[in-house]
């Protein structure tokens, strides 16, 4: 479990997550895809496995875009890193909602931003798909793992199974697999 982390400065964590929080329209998994791109591929701050574990924990706990930011920040610099990443990620949204709230409670109207979102939504989906393909190539390439991925997908989309249930069952599959190989080897 040797990890070679050059100490990442808190300022850099803050700047990175502020940018993600300011431009990641689409929220949720789009944010996660952005974090993966920036932190895993561009900056090499953490490995694919660690990142996906963080995403899994984040999914269990609710707002997973925020949780994944917290996880990455903690991984790099402990509690201060986690807090800086979380606060920097939320800050742009906070400023936006505050500004929009001010306008709203003064003029009682929502700004016309709907058409902007209608333009960005399909691209956000593309972003998530691209991230998914990258993860699948590395983590679900072999038949058995690919089958698990497909089952997780189907359970979530067709039957509305919660992320927690899906992840726990997959974890048990991992345990069983480990026990089996341990016995054979």
């Amino acid at each position, binding site marked *: 479990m040797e990890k070679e982390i050059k100490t990442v400065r808190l300022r850099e964590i803050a700047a990175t997550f502020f940018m993600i929080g300011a431009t*990641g*329209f689409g*929220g949720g*998994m789009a944010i996660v895809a952005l974090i993966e791109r920036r932190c895993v591929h561009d900056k090499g701050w953490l490995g694919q*496995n660690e990142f996906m*574990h963080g*995403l*899994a*924990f*984040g*999914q269990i*706990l*609710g*707002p*997973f*875009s*925020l949780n994944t930011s*917290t*996880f990455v920040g*903690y991984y790099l610099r*402990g*509690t201060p890193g986690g807090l800086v990443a979380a606060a920097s990620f*939320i800050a742009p949204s*906070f400023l936006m*909602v505050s500004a*929009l*709230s001010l306008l*709203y409670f003064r003029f009682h109207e929502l700004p016309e931003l*709907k*058409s*902007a*979102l*209608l*333009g*960005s*939504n*399909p*691209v*956000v*989906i*593309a*972003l*998530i798909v691209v*991230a*998914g393909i990258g*993860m*699948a190539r590395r*983590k679900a390439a072999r038949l058995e793992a690919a089958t*698990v*991925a497909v089952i*997780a*997908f*189907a359970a*979530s*989309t067709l039957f509305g199974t919660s992320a927690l249930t899906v*992840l726990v069952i997959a974890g*048990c599959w*991992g*345990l069983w*697999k480990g026990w089996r190989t341990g016995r054979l080897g």
Partner: protein
Amino acid sequence: MVGMLKLAWVFLKIGVIFFGGGYVLIPLLHRILVDQMQWLTLKEFLDGVALSQLTPGPLAMLATFAGYKGAGLLGALVATVCIFLPGTALMLFISSRYERFRRIEAVNHFLDGILPAVVGLVFAAAFNLGRTSLTSARDFILLGAGFALLQFTAIAPMAVILGAAVVGLLLHFS
């Protein structure tokens, strides 16, 4: 005006229940903010949900909106911090255990097992978004163009997303 302590307490409580996550939050917030506390009218609540969806942050940004209504900018800050505090604290705790527990072999097997499931859940998120927001040929063209740019070029994803938003604005998508 709403008392700051009351505001903090209510959103802390919501933050604790929030662990369930996502869309469980809408009925919950509705019950507390509109029915119990009467901080927002129903119309304000619905507009607030729409407004918080405009930002990259999670749906819980609605706390910022409700806090602003109740006690201005400071109220917005207090509500936002409080709703995210419990979950973030728990996430920090899990992150701190993560590296320690990873050294246990069984935990590692468990964690290896969830990796392909995470892949499935990522695609499920794309699928669920697509089911509601891909409705016309125009959307699929944007999806294809976005995919090509993001997969095969080095253009920053932020630029691609904002570019698509500008296209939507300029062409008055509705």
